[in-house]
């Protein structure tokens, strides 16, 4: 298993670079990388035995492979494979496939490392690969959005580095366990870095613009897996060290509520999905013991949603209401929306029940409000009109916003095959993942989410359907993002000290 692990770690990077030498085989090679990860993650989940690896003697790289990491790796593999299917017939160049594969490899690395420096390297490679993917269309806007992302994440990682050396100062080791007994400023600095990187609470306000202005496959990758590279270490710290646990849970509830609050007022489909990511990440952190399963279901569902919304004729929910979408898209959209709202039969239900069971008493009210809000704003997608007029799929006149053209550009019918293959993988995964926690299907467990969803829809029809409030986006400006980082650093310091 050790040899297999090492081969598996190196494989995406190796293939990512060889793709350049064999441009004709780019898609096949890229898909092989994703499939290899799927197989490996399944092995990890079946064996259930944690593997600890210590490479290169005492101060070397430490890796920890356990079922928690297995879930995250599995998510990563499935989402990456779905993105490859989606892009199969598109005009994406070899460069794109190589970058996605390198991103895949570095996200995998972030999920398995158990020391601060390996994590730093993995996260920085993720930043670079993500920047290149965001800036892939080479338009001014995409470059600015990418630069903004790179700035925010690099400044965050510099804080993280200072925190890492403070841990080293205290323990003469960079391992995660060193966080126990580390000075409070070290914990605060490391958390500032990871919270920003993972898009949590106020430090995560860079996320909506970045995720909504990228191309659909890139948004799917970012929301599905890339942000989880920042979340995963937080969940791991919470499980390793008792004192950290309440802080992580607190940020879980905070970000769940913040994301929901913004999302219910949102009128743009892609932005709404991005804000929903901010809130769903809260569900992952709110109960770190069961983070893996929730991350899996969220990764699949969010990737599917971004890919579907990218195919719709418009991003504006108001316009979509007067413009019926093809019924087959609507069915896919409804399956995904039901799963994220926690409807039984889909694994989003099991994940939500499991998370709710593992909450502490003080979290329950907050998380229930967040769940209610989630079903409220997903009602916006579920109750969109649909019909089988094929011509509506390809808008004849150019859309008002420049970006809309690139995100929902009409693709030739042959590309439909790739899209449905991706949907089959992601939505099929949602059905199949039910086996992980089939104990959830009791009468009491089933009734509660149904009630929540019904109440959410009621609120939607009574209040939010007519409401047109536009929340200010002031806090998403670049300077404010950096400023908020310093404020959250101070706040975290006092939280750790308390």
């Amino acid at each position: 298993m050790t040899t297999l692990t090492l081969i598996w770690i190196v494989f995406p990077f190796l293939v990512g670079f060889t793709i350049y030498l064999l441009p004709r085989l780019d898609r096949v090679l890229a898909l092989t990388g994703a499939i290899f990860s799927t197989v490996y993650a399944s092995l990890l989940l079946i064996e259930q035995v944690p593997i600890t690896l210590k490479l290169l003697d005492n101060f070397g790289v430490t890796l920890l492979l356990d079922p928690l990491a297995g879930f995250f790796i599995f998510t990563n593999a499935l989402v990456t494979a779905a993105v490859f299917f989606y892009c199969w017939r598109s005009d994406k160049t070899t460069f794109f496939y190589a970058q996605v594969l390198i991103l895949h490899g570095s996200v995998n690395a972030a999920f398995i490392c158990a020391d601060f420096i390996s994590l730093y390297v993995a996260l920085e490679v993720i930043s670079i690969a993500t920047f290149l993917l965001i800036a892939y269309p080479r338009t001014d806007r995409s470059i600015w959005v990418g630069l903004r992302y790179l700035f925010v994440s690099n400044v965050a990682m510099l804080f993280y580095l200072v925190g890492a050396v403070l841990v080293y100062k205290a323990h003469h080791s960079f391992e995660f366990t060193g966080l126990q007994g580390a000075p409070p400023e070290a914990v605060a600095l490391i958390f500032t870095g990871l919270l920003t990187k993972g898009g949590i609470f106020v430090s995560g306000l860079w996320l909506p613009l970045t995720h909504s202005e990228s191309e659909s496959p890139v948004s799917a990758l970012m929301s599905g897996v890339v942000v989880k590279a920042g979340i995963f270490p937080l969940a791991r710290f919470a499980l390793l060290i008792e004192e950290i646990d309440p802080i992580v849970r607190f940020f879980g509830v905070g970000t769940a509520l913040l994301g929901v609050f913004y999302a219910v007022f949102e009128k743009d489909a892609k932005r709404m999905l991005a804000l929903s990511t901010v809130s769903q990440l809260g569900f992952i952190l709110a109960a770190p013991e069961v983070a893996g399963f929730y991350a899996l279901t969220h990764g699949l569902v969010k990737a599917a949603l971004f890919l579907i919304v990218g195919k719709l004729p418009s991003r504006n929910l108001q316009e979509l209401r007067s413009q019926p979408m093809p019924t087959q898209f609507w069915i896919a959209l409804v399956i995904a929306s039901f799963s994220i709202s926690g409807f039984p039969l889909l694994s989003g239900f099991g994940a939500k029940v499991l998370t709710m069971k593992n909450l502490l008493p003080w979290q329950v009210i907050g998380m229930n409000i967040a769940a209610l809000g989630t079903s409220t704003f997903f009602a916006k997608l579920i109750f969109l009109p649909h019909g089988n007029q094929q011509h509506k799929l390809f808008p004849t006149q150019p859309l008002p916003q420049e970006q809309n053209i690139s995100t929902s550009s009409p693709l030739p019918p042959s590309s439909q095959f790739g899209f449905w293959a991706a949907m089959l993988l992601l939505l099929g995964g949602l059905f199949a993942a039910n086996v992980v926690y089939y104990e959830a299907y009791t009468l009491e467990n089933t009734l509660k989410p149904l009630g929540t969803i019904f109440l959410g829809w009621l609120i939607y029809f009574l209040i939010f359907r007519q409401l047109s409030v536009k929340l200010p986006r002031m806090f998403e400006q670049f300077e404010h993002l950096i400023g908020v980082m310093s404020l959250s650093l101070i706040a975290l310091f006092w939280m750790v000290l308390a």
Partner: protein
Amino acid sequence: MLEAFVLITILIGFLGVLFKKNLIMKIISMDVMSTGVVAYYVVVSAREGLFTPIITDSPSGTYADPVPQAVILTAIVIGFSIQALMLVGAIKLAKDNPTLETREIEQSNTP
């Protein structure tokens, strides 16, 4: 004392990222910040001694800690490549925004 100066460097870099209006100046400020971080690693590794940790016939006793130095080398390389990437981005943006004022760029590029 040395530690305080290093931390001040990091702070100055951070404030530069926050308050400088020009994109290039922001990128340079970020470099100042990362230089501060690198210096901090060096200061930490030199806490217990200054000698290069190589085994010789006459051990001096006070060796510098090699681990943080080795580690920060990776961070320097990563920082350098990110810097390069950002400057390429700035070059591309400069075609349509010759002044490179971040506020202007932001206004014309957010929906």
